[in-house]
């Protein structure tokens, strides 16, 4: 897969925002891995490094209140949907100042103010939920589209087929997004089905579907613009297979030995952060100084997030009993 830099169709503001978000996610995730190594962060931890163009190209094409639901590789989308680096890092540290008071950790982030629905740790379970979120938007008569994200592994779950079927039957305003990074944990897409082109799954439901270069932020933006326009107009779901890549293993405990070094390098050559920086400079969209300013600001933002997390208090044990029920006087057993 080759990504070529086209003549810029987008504004300086758009390019710099793409670059800022991608670099923030990249630097944040690098820091996450470092702090995991220091055992400041525990549990399962899946980083987004390599897939940043998906988040950036998607966000620029959405309306602020378009709901998003995704899986457990969620730090990047959480940052994109307006959860501060402080809150994301403090959550990884299990601190009470974290996005969900240390209750969720790496896999569970939510932001009701921007309609961000997380953060789901059961592979594929969020696919029907995303269709349901879209059903509620349709029911209430809003013009919002629910972006329902999942990985290539989840594309083999039965929940997907049931949700695709109902979403098409009821013409729900949903864009289904498969972030195909090639591997379901250690099992390649080719080893899990006879159908290797995931976008073809949509054909069984007559759902408009296409494969997209997920390493190119411009291409991702264009695909989302087209898909959301379709879903927003009342025509029903759209399915995007975004071909992307994760440079790291499935999780921090996975060295990723099932992949050849050359394969990882091939993708690093089309790294979205580098490619976008190069495009900005070569096409004189912005200056070296503009780029450096973003780099400095992000370095500071990530360092501040670590400091915030380090200095934040842990939750009290009593917090564990809160938020099981809305009912405040629920009689728990002891």
């Amino acid at each position, binding site marked *: 897969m080759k990504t070529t830099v086209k003549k810029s169709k987008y504004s300086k503001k758009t390019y710099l925002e793409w670059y800022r978000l991608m670099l923030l996610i990249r630097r944040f995730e690098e820091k996450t891995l470092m702090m995991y190594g220091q055992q400041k962060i525990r549990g399962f931890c899946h980083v987004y490094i390599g897939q940043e163009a998906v988040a950036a190209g998607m966000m620029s094409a959405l309306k602020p209140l378009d709901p998003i639901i995704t899986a457990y590789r969620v730090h990047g989308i959480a940052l994109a949907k307006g959860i501060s680096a402080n809150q994301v890092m403090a959550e990884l540290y299990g601190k009470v100042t974290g996005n969900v008071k240390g209750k969720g950790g790496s896999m569970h982030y939510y932001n009701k103010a921007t309609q961000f629905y997380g953060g789901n740790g059961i592979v594929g379970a969020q696919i*029907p*939920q995303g269709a349901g979120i879209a059903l*509620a938007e349709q029911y209430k008569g809003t013009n919002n589209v629910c972006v329902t994200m999942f990985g290539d592994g989840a594309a083999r779950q039965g*929940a997907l087929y049931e949700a695709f079927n109902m979403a098409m039957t009821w013409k729900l305003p949903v864009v289904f997004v498969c972030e195909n990074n090639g591997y379901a944990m250690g099992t390649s897409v080719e080893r899990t089905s006879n159908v290797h082109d995931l976008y073809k799954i949509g054909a069984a439901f007559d759902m408009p579907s296409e494969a997209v270069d997920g390493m190119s932020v411009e291409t991702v933006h264009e695909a989302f613009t087209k898909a959301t326009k379709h879903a927003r107009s009342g025509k029903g779901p759209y399915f995007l297979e975004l071909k992307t890549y994760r440079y790291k293993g499935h999780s921090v405990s996975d060295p990723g030995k099932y992949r050849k070094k050359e394969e990882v390098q091939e993708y690093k050559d089309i790294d979205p952060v580098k490619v976008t920086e190069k495009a900005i400079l070569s096409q004189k969209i912005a200056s070296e100084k503009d780029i450096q300013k973003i780099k400095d600001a992000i370095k500071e933002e990530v360092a501040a997030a670590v400091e915030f997390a380090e200095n934040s208090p842990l939750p009290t044990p009593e917090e564990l009993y809160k938020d099981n029920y809305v009912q405040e006087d629920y009689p728990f057993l002891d």
Partner: protein
Amino acid sequence: MSRIITLRDALREAMSEEMRRDENVLLMGEEVAQYNGAYKVSKGMLDEFGAKRVIDTPIAELGFAGIGVGAALNGLRPIVEFMTWNFAVLAFDQIVNGAAKYLHMSAGQYNCPIVFRGPSGAAGQLAQQHSQTFESWMANVPGVKVVSTTDPYDAKGLMKSAIRDDDPVCFMESEVAYADKGEVPEEEYLIPLGLADIKRYGDDVTIVSYNKMMKVAMSAAEELAKDGISAEVVDLRTIRPMDYDTIINSVKKTNRLVVVDESWPFAGVSSEISHQVQRYAFDYLDAPIVRVNAKDTSLGYSSVYVEEYLPNPKRVIEAVKQAMYV
């Protein structure tokens, strides 16, 4: 004013009244709309509320339960009908990992006001896969509430509360009780979740039960009365949160307890009650607690198997006599 109506009518009245009251309430499931419900619980609701609010789904329990969960997170109050709770097993991921967890995972940002409802328990000669009870399964999970009843009056008041509840509620009915009749007021009323009801007062022994096993318990109590044994019968109505106070106060009065529970014995509803009673009323017990459960086996088709498997008045009477040393 009250009139005599069936369980299915009572459930339909509860859902319809709540749908008239709150436009965010909707009903979805297999055959609920055009077919008027597999057991006619939703008869006529499509005509009144239209296809937007009474939604026929394909046979895809996992999928439509998940769509219900998503809709509930986003401000609606779905009632998801399962043709039977046996089929809901396919949807347990969405109930247990989804509905029950969102409030906690999101630290209070997203609640999931949804009702999952349908019949639970054996309903004749339906064999292994259509005869199970799920009260103890679901009640094991923090984050959900569980209601189980076949009494028309209780069912209507509890269903209205379940729909208005801001937490997920699993509501369990019975295929063999939908035609059961009972007195139900014409005026609106609600019954709060979490309260048991003493359906018969007595002094010698407490019998605790729920759902259609209440009929077995009541029938046994009548027989026992002929032998001069006065049984108090407690209907749990809500399984989670359970009304331990009512059970324990009754045991403190009668000093003897029999639990009639269609769950399997291992970690069933009766196990939980037995634990609580030995802990909080140990000194009041004059005999070990006796329980009458469905037998610890899968249920086969033949009428002989059904007869052998289910609690019946005879087994309850024997259990009471065991608890009374008579």
